[in-house]
């Protein structure tokens, strides 16, 4: 074909007409439903993000083999944010403008959530944040299904104190998560008639705990609670065991095991640490057994399953159920379906949307680390996110858009 003006015009007109076709089709509701995902599947947080990505893909695949949603297939549009907070805003904008997805699941650190929450709210794209966090986000466009401090610390503290005694020492990571959580620990220790004998905040790169361990011994508490975060802080548990303190003072943690850290420690180092989460691989329920079988069929083994991977899976399942109930992919219709107090049965038990806060009502399990697994000691069924409920009421203020710092 020789390239002259007439031919060029013809062909480009045809091309642009072709390019417009799928959009027209999509508006009619015949194309796939697009699920956007932004997660750190490489870089420093990939231990959290990779399994979350695997869980999301597993959930979507199961939805599609079950016939999709509203007769349409679900298509994943996923971006790897490479553990770089700047990429979150960039990809969130691409998901909303270019890909025009129907929902976004993702974000790991609280910083990443706050980086994209406003973008998604402005562009009216429904957002699910499926990670345990410090609590307080109040925004009608977001749904959160991770445990908050009230659900976790409130359960863990009395249990750990009953197993040890009233004098508690806290060593926490030195950023907003650690400070907020330490505040909650103090609150619940005092509410249970105990006393805080010392609090240390440690920057994320501290990996030598010799003097901290000696100061703990000087204070001689009955219990140590450690909301420590990341690889460097893992050294604490190792050095604590190496100095022989493990058999002298019991230890509890609000973070240990979220990224499967307990599988890195040897049984001698990890056994006996008390934790409380929504999920444990050792949960002996038909739901969990079947979930693990499906995961193994997809990925070969269950090594990677952890707390927030399961949260992400449950987030996608919750969204899918809401789409079915709403009978539409319209954002407001889905939000209203979720606000009916919708429930799903996930690997970690029943997860119910709390209409007032858009957080989740879920089971919390008190567990002890035993042979690199988490043995469930007690299950506290269907706990409410009371901390967020105290500050946030989306029914009364649907336009609220704040992360409250909860006064304790």
């Amino acid at each position, binding site marked *: 074909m020789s390239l002259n003006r007439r031919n060029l015009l013809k062909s480009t007109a045809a091309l642009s007409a072709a390019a417009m076709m799928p959009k027209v089709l999509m508006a009619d509701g015949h194309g796939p439903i697009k699920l956007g995902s932004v997660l750190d599947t490489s870089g420093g947080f990939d231990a959290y993000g990779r399994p979350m990505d695997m869980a999301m893909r597993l959930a979507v695949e199961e939805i599609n083999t079950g016939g999709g949603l509203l007769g349409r297939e679900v298509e994943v549009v996923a971006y790897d944010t490479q553990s770089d907070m700047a990429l979150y805003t960039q990809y969130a904008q691409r998901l909303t403008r270019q890909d025009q997805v129907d929902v976004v699941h993702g974000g790991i650190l609280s910083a990443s959530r706050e980086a994209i929450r406003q973008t998604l709210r402005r562009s009216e794209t429904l957002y699910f944040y499926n990670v345990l966090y410090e609590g307080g986000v109040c925004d009608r466009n977001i749904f959160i299904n991770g445990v908050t401090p009230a659900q976790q610390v409130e359960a863990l503290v009395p249990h750990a104190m009953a197993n040890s005694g009233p004098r508690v020492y806290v060593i926490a990571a030195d950023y907003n998560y650690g400070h907020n959580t330490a505040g909650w620990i103090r609150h619940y220790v005092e509410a249970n008639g105990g006393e805080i004998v010392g609090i*240390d905040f*440690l920057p994320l790169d501290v990996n030598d*705990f010799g*003097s901290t*361990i000696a100061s703990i*011994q000087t204070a001689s508490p009955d219990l140590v609670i450690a909301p420590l975060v990341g690889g460097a802080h893992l050294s604490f548990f190792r050095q604590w065991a*190496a100095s022989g*303190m493990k058999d002298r003072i019991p230890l509890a943690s609000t973070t240990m095991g979220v990224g499967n850290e307990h599988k890195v*420690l040897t049984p*001698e180092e990890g056994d006996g640490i008390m934790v409380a989460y929504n999920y444990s691989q050792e949960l002996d329920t038909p739901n969990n057994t079947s979930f693990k079988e499906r995961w193994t069929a997809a990925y070969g083994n269950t090594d990677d399953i952890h707390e927030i991977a399961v949260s992400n899976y449950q987030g996608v399942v919750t969204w899918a159920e809401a789409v079915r109930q709403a009978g539409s992919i319209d954002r407001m219709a889905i939000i209203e379906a979720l606000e009916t107090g919708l429930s799903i049965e996930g690997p970690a038990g029943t997860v119910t949307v709390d209409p007032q806060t858009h957080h989740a009502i879920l089971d919390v399990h008190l567990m002890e680390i035993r042979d690199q697994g988490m043995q469930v000691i007690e299950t506290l069924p269907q706990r409410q996110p009371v901390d967020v409920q105290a500050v946030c009421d989306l029914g009364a203020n649907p336009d609220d858009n704040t992360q409250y710092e909860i006064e304790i």
Partner: protein
Amino acid sequence: MDLSFVILVEMLYAVATLVLISAGLAVVFGMMKVINLAHGEFMMMGGYATITAVNFGVNIFVAMLIIAPIAVGLIGLLVERLVIRHLYGRLIDTMLATWGLSLLFVGLATMIFGNTTTGISTPIPGFTVGNYQVNGYNFFIIVISIMLIAGMLAVLKGTRAGLIARGTMQRSDMASALGYSPDRIYMATFFCGSALSGLAGAVLAPLVGLVPTSGVAYIAKAFITVVAGGPALIAGLISSAASFGIINQVFAFAVSPVIGDVALFVTAIVLLRLMPQGITSRFFKGKL
């Protein structure tokens, strides 16, 4: 009484750790004047070499004291032949090149071992001092550091090879005129420096959770110790490690570990203001 013993042990341990993490850099930077920004990554590789060897069933002490130093030394040898030997005498260029190397090693370690925390447990049990429990491994690190210093002193001062190495570092042209090959001597010295870094990483591995980016945590302290130490290799290493280690622990016990680190860096700034050429430019002059 018990507490003062615990504090004493922690102080010695802090000094020993500084000696250990700075020894390899003291050779590479202090002697050879190569600003090795990949020093932390050499330590990280020492840690991974140990963990890999232990996972293959090797005795942990063999892995730490023999396998890791040799493995990292060989990597150092490769690096020296491919990159560093073209850059002797070009201080700023070595900085750029080794910074690139450090990124490369972090990337390689991430590809091989994954970006997750790994580790092994300490081979020595804790023991009791009165009402306190002390990490038994601290003593191991103190002993290793003392042996390291003694070993370096013996090699550099007592052997002909040490004499030749020191001479070459001062005047490579004269060494060359006397019939020694500076090229070979530089190569061997870089091997030793890398091996020392590998040893440090290996010995510290059981105390920490190792990730490919672990090296970053050590690099600042290692450079400060070596720079503040000044021209004398071993006397400088000991004197600056001792001052920093003790100050760090005093403040760590009196206030908190964070303030301990702050105190260390403030001391370093003051020290370098008062003695820009390092401690050994004023005290212990002419010592090795």
